C-alpha cells in the first residue's frame, strides 16, 4: 500500500515554545490511523499542519498523488455553527464546492453525489431540516456526509466523538469502520483510548513529540500504553 501523506520531521513553534516537535509518519491507502494524547499535546496542531492550515516551522508534509481538494475533513465544531441558519442539504452540498474549482455553480452530478451520501449515511429524514435543530450525533453525520462529498479516499477527523454520548459515539465509529472497509483511509484524533485501540490499525501517541508511532499490536505492548492503562486502573 502506497503512502498518500508523508509527514517528515514536522515541527510547529509558537512564541511559548514547540507545540509539535519532530514528528514523522506516513498515511497509506486504507489506513485507520489514530492520533492519541492528552489535551495540549499538539494533536490538533499536527492535524492542521497536515491539512496545510498551519505552516510548519520545520520539516515538511508531502501529498503523494493526493490533491488538496481530494481530502475529506471533519473539524471540531465552532461556536459560529451553533446558531447558523442553514439547511442540512446546504451543508452537505458545500462539500462539493471544492471540486468545482473556479466554476461558480454546482452541477447535477454534485447534487446526485449529495443524494448518494445522504442515503449512504442514512440521514434522509434530516435532509430538509435546519442544521442547528439537529442533535450532536446527527450533526456529526451531516458533517461526515459533507466530508464524503469532498473526498472519499481519505478522511481526517478532529475529535469526531467529542460531545457525543457513548451510543452515538459507537454508531459513529461503526460508520467510520464501514467507510474504512470500503477503502477510505481514516486519520482521527481521539480522546477515547478504548475505541482508538479497538478500531485503529496504526497509532501515534503525541506529547509534543511522538511517544509512540507504529502498529496497534506493538502499541498495546508498549510501556506508554501500559502506563496509561495502569494509571486508569489506579484511578
Amino acid at each position, binding site marked *: 500500500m502506497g503512502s498518500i501523506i508523508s509527514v517528515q520531521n514536522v515541527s510547529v513553534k509558537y512564541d511559548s515554545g514547540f507545540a509539535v516537535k519532530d514528528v514523522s509518519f506516513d498515511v497509506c491507502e486504507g489506513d485507520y490511523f489514530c492520533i492519541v494524547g492528552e489535551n495540549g499535546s499538539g494533536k490538533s496542531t499536527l492535524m492542521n499542519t497536515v491539512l496545510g*492550515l498551519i505552516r510548519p516551522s520545520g520539516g515538511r508534509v508531502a501529498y503523494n498523488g493526493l490533491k*488538496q481538494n481530494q481530502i475529506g475533513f471533519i473539524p471540531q465544531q465552532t461556536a459560529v455553527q451553533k446558531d447558523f*441558519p*442553514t*439547511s442540512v442539504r*446546504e451543508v452537505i452540498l458545500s462539500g462539493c464546492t471544492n471540486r468545482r474549482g473556479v466554476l461558480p455553480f454546482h452541477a447535477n452530478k454534485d447534487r446526485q453525489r449529495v443524494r448518494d451520501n445522504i442515503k449512504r449515511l442514512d440521514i434522509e429524514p434530516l435532509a430538509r431540516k435546519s442544521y442547528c435543530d439537529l442533535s450532536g450525533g446527527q450533526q456529526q453525520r451531516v458533517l461526515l456526509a459533507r466530508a464524503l462529498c469532498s473526498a472519499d479516499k481519505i478522511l481526517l477527523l478532529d475529535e469526531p466523538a467529542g460531545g457525543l454520548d457513548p451510543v452515538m459515539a459507537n454508531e459513529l465509529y461503526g460508520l467510520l469502520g464501514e467507510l474504512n472497509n470500503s477503502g477510505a483511509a481514516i486519520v482521527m484524533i481521539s480522546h477515547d483510548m478504548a475505541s482508538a485501540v479497538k478500531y485503529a490499525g496504526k497509532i501515534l501517541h503525541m506529547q509534543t513529540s511522538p511517544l509512540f508511532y507504529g502498529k496497534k499490536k506493538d502499541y498495546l505492548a508498549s510501556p506508554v500504553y501500559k502506563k496509561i492503562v495502569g494509571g486508569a486502573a489506579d484511578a
Partner: protein
Amino acid sequence: MLDMVNEMLSMPFVVRALIVGVLVALCAALLGVSLVLKRYSMIGDGLSHVGFGTLAIALAFNVAPLQVSIPLVLLAAFLLLRLSENSKIKGDAAIALISSSALAVGVIIVAKAKGMPADLFNYMFGSILAMKTGDLYLSVAVSAVVLTLYVLFYNKIYAVTFDEKFAKATGTKTGLYNMLIALLTALVIVVGMRMMGAMLISSLIIFPALTSMRVFKSFKGVVICSAGLSAVCFIIGLVVSYAWDTPAGASIVVVNLAAFLVFFAVGFVNKALRHLCC
C-alpha cells in the same frame, strides 16, 4: 397616499436617492449576512467611521469625496480584516480604536477646515440631497459589480461563512473570499455613506441579516429575505421621511428596527407552535 408618491417621484433628487438607496440596501444586506454570521459586524461599523474621516479629508483639501474615500476605505478594509483574523491582538478592540480615532480626526478636520457644522451633521447622519447624477452612475456600477460577484461566488461565500476551516482544508482559497467580502463591503459603505450617514450606514448591513434569521432557517432563505426586506425597508423609510419630514437615514433605520421586531415576534410564535406540536 398615491398623490404623495407621485409628488415624490416628480422630484429628480428623490428618484436618484431611491435608485441609489435601493441598490445600496440590496448589496449591503447580501454582504451583511456573511458579516453577521462570521462575527465581522464590527468591520462594517469600523469602515463607516473610517469613511467619515476620509470625507473630512476630502472636504479639507477640496477634492471630490469619492476619489479620496474609495481607495482609503478599501485600504482600511484590508487592514481591519487582517486585524480581526489575528486574534492575538484582540481584533474587536483594535477595530474600535481605529474607528473612533478616524472619527475624531474627521471631526477635528471638519471643524478646522470650514467650520460648517451643517456639513458635519450631513456626513454623520446623511442627506438625500447629497446624491448627484455622478453618484447615481457610480452607485449603479458598484452595485452591478457587487451583485455579479456575489452571485458568481455564492457557493464559495457560503463555504467560507459556514466553515472556513473545512473550506480551506479542502482546497478553497478562503483568504481570497474573505478579502472579497471585506472589499465589497467597503465599496458599498462608501457609496451609501453620504445618503445614510457615517453613523447609520452599518445598520443597512446588520439589520436585514439579523431580522431574516429570526424566521428563515436556511442560508439561501436568509440571503433572499435580507435583500428583499432591505430594499422594502429603504423605500418605506424614504416615504416616511418625506411624509413626516424626518431625516431620511434615521427613518430608514427605524423602519428596519420595526421590521426586526415584527420578525422577532413571528420567530417567537413559530418556535412556540413547534414546541406545542412536538
